[in-house]
């Protein structure tokens, strides 16, 4: 019951946010939503299944271009083009399955790096379809006669997508699929011995992860309104990776925290952009040393019953209320 109150309260707050937030802040929130979904996707693959990927910007790019081209060139209605973009990206995910079945850890990372670089090279050269280096303008999303041409309207689209994708992720994680993922991550051989087919489950992991990132890419297209191949580079892949690592690998709230925090950070630091790279690097190092499970891992550890006693009273009361 308490949980229900908490979540409905949060939902109301989110739904009413446009009333008291500026369009600029809503735009950044929309971007945070995009990265949230992408981070969820990467987390399902790396955090839960243990398959390292630093080429996810490739899926983001595929989703973005598919999401923009389907309505622009093939007159696909936009409510269909977002999931379709996700599926196209998901199918592209199978490309990575081939190295994933043969390589582990750093070697798989290199293969994913190659994938990301390949996508970044193909997109600008396929000028007939993508508009080349100049990039392309994304047609405005329209649904039942309503055009999503303001940050407020796009906010609600992003909110709906984010909520759906989080619920889906929770479902996956709590299901047989999720348990198989974790088994593969923790002890691949033992998992095989238990009859978990590596091919089948790794394939599912790559498909789902690429699907998520593709959806994020399509949303990115509509939120920004303009996409160019140069944006989907290694730096972008590493950004998503950072969001996952900083927020918390293998956790859904961690993905939310990491994505929102790192999306807002550059805008908080807008006077000190040069510092941004330094902070990113420093944060990553600190996280690895002190909080290997990210911010969320840190929060969880310090709200465990034994640690709870050490917290000051008011904080303890809040945690206990949330716990129910």
């Amino acid at each position, binding site marked *: 019951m308490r949980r229900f109150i908490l979540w409905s309260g949060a939902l109301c707050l989110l739904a009413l946010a446009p009333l008291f937030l500026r*369009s600029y802040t809503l735009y950044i929130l929309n*971007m945070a939503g995009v990265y949230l979904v992408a981070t969820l996707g990467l987390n399902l693959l790396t955090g839960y299944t243990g398959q390292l990927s630093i080429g996810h910007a490739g899926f983001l790019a595929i989703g973005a271009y598919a999401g923009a081209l389907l309505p622009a060139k093939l007159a696909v209605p936009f409510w269909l083009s977002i999931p379709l973009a996700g599926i196209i990206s998901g199918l592209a995910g199978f490309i990575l399955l081939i190295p994933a079945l043969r390589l582990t850890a750093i070697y798989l990372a290199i293969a994913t790096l190659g994938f990301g670089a390949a996508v970044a090279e193909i997109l600008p050269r396929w000028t007939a379809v993508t508009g*080349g280096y100049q990039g392309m303008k994304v047609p405005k999303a329209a649904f039942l006669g309503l055009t999503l041409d303001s940050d407020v309207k796009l906010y609600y689209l992003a909110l709906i997508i984010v909520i759906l994708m989080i619920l889906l992720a929770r479902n996956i994680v709590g299901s047989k699929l999720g348990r198989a993922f974790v088994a593969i991550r923790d002890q691949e051989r033992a998992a095989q011995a238990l009859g978990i087919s590596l091919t089948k489950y790794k394939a599912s992991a790559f498909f789902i992860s690429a699907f998520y990132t593709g959806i994020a890419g399509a949303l990115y297209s509509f939120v920004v309104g303009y996409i160019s191949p*140069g944006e989907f580079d290694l730096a972008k892949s590493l950004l998503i990776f950072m969001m996952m690592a900083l927020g918390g690998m293998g956790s859904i709230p961690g993905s939310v925290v990491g994505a929102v925090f790192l999306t807002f950070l550059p805008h908080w630091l807008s006077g000190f952009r040069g510092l941004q790279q330094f902070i990113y690097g420093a944060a990553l190092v600190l996280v690895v040393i002190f909080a290997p499970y990210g911010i969320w891992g840190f929060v969880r550890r310090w709200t465990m019953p034994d640690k709870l006693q050490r917290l000051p009273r008011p904080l303890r009361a809040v945690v206990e209320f949330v716990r129910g």
Partner: protein
Amino acid sequence: MLRKMKVLRWLVVSALVFTVAGLSIAQQEEVPGVTADTIKLGSFIAQSGAVAPIGIPVVHGAQTWYNFINDQWGGIYGRKIEFIALDDGFNPANTVAVVKKLVEEEKVFAIVNPLGTITYQAVFDYLVQNGVPVVSPHGNAVFMCQPTVHTAFSIQPNNIAFGRTLAQYAVLKLEKQKIGISYVQDAFGAELYQYVTDELSKRGVTPVATVSYPGTETNFSSYVLQLQQAGAEAVILLGYLADAAAILREAETLGYKPQWLGTNTITPVLYQLAGTAAEDLIFIGFATDPGTPYHPEAYLFTLLLNRYFPGEAPSGYSEIAYIGAQMVTDALSIAGPDLTREKFIQALETFKDWEHGLTPKITFSPTDHCGIEALWLVALRGGGAVFLEEWDWTQY
């Protein structure tokens, strides 16, 4: 007693409400970015990341002129110019955020000296829809002034001018028939290539060799070899400074010396990067080299730049931003003390043969907001730049 208090409370609240309402209505009627003593001008210029070496001089060049106007004459009609140049890191997604901040929070009067093609492209529709004037974007792309948009004014010549001028000069003036082209694989190189080849085909000339390379290329030997083996007598370089230097050095080792032609990205700094290989390269400029002797306007620029940013070497990037800023302040001045966006636009449209001695003449009209059309052909000779002639591609 209680009644009186209630009435009093209602009176106070109503007074407050009406005051606030009155103030907000008054706010709405004001011109955005203009107060009694300031004019807010916004810009998006990359000051971090790969494009920072271009962006930072651009900020400094523009800021130099605005500072000068503020310090020397207290601004325009008593209004000091506040130049807010936000860093978008050359990432169009950031540009959208930065522009929203400038337009909706800072409520700038106009966007001036913005940097970049893809960055401007991402926010172009938004700025047009919101009626925000944009003056002097730093980029060469065609969309910036064609088709004509009421609120957007360019100063830099676009890729049509560059591409066609290079092709025309090679064929008509230098009378070369065997022409080679090298271009960098990005928006800049691709668009230039389009117009060079179009103009060449109009003249009945097919390039004997065309090479293209990614922006990250470091080894140009195979490209130069291709050009040499095709026997190109003139090679049109459509790229940036570092890659041009690498190509020239490579050609020198091969003993290959065609007539090199370049665009506005070439500056005499090429001598430092390529040494004697840079000799006799002909490139297109549209601004007087800051180091030109006996030139008061160029000297003033170097003087002012040194005053506000001591130690910064004048470059083509800071100079064009400086000139763009001059365009802005001249228009603000012509618009008069009763400043509105519409008056600012009309003031710009009165520019006929406008120049401050550093560029070819610029003329605007309600149907033509493109800036420089005629270009200056310059040769690298004896360690410096030598002016050859002015070339108006529209005349051929």
